[in-house]
């Protein structure tokens, strides 16, 4: 199983690329190199987001899929029960001192 922390780090990195390219393209909408980089990063982000949702929990409501999400019983209050997986997993501000 891919480590949750590692996968989240990859999502953060690729999402940052998408975000920074978005701001750049807002003021340079004709830059074809930047557009190609955007397409590549956006595609990678989309597949990573879905992979994370399938293995852990959805990070956006668009990734919620009650039939396939959260096949592992980790990070849920409802192990082994079909449930709305948007409630699973840690909130972003958790972490640090436990």
């Amino acid at each position, binding site marked *: 199983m891919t480590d949750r922390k590692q996968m989240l780090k990859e999502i953060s990195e690729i999402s940052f690329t998408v975000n920074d390219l978005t701001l750049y393209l807002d003021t340079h909408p004709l830059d074809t190199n930047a557009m190609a980089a955007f397409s590549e990063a956006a595609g990678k982000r989309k597949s990573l987001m879905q992979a994370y949702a399938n293995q852990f929990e959805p990070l956006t409501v668009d990734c919620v899929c009650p039939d396939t999400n959260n096949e592992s019983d980790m990070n849920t209050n409802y192990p082994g029960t079909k449930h709305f997986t948007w409630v699973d997993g840690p909130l972003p*501000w958790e972490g640090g001192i436990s």
Partner: protein
Amino acid sequence: MWTYEKRLQFPVNITQTCPKTASLIITQFGGPDGELAASMRYLAQRYSMPCREVGGLLTDIGTEELAHLEIICTMVYQLTKSLTAEQAKTAGFDAYYVDHTTALWPTAAAGAPFTAYEFQSKGDALTDLTEDLAAEQKARTTYDNLIRIIDNPEVREPLKFLREREVVHFQRFGEAIEKIKSTLNAKNFYYYNAEFDKQFVKK
């Protein structure tokens, strides 16, 4: 319309309680050059922006500032979530603790509460974008000041990331000003207000 993504833009994992540090960095939540003021400034200014692409940029940067607000609030929360009664007496946090316990409330480091005066929306594209350039620099200076006096790397790393973003936003707003100028009278950029005297604006 907005959608929420359940993660931080930059990871925050602070393992040492420090109410003193919390009382300083909270200024980037509710202070005069904080992230709350930044997001509300850009998201308020965008409606009357005469150029669609600049309105889009204000939306995207305003949205990113909301993610920065979340990073700052997370840092304050983690620095104080295991606070003991004895630690609550720390100078700089004791007064805050009395009023808000360890909840998040927007205030400047020196104690002034957040007010709408902390974000500007003047209704003139050149004026507002110049304000935005200054806002990014003021936020960058605030991060410089915080990084200079805070030693804990768990606090410094997110602050360094946020500082860098101010520099990038400054660059993008500079480009937005040039974009606006290209729609104005090249002989006199102040001949009319592009947000009000719409009949003059070049499409």
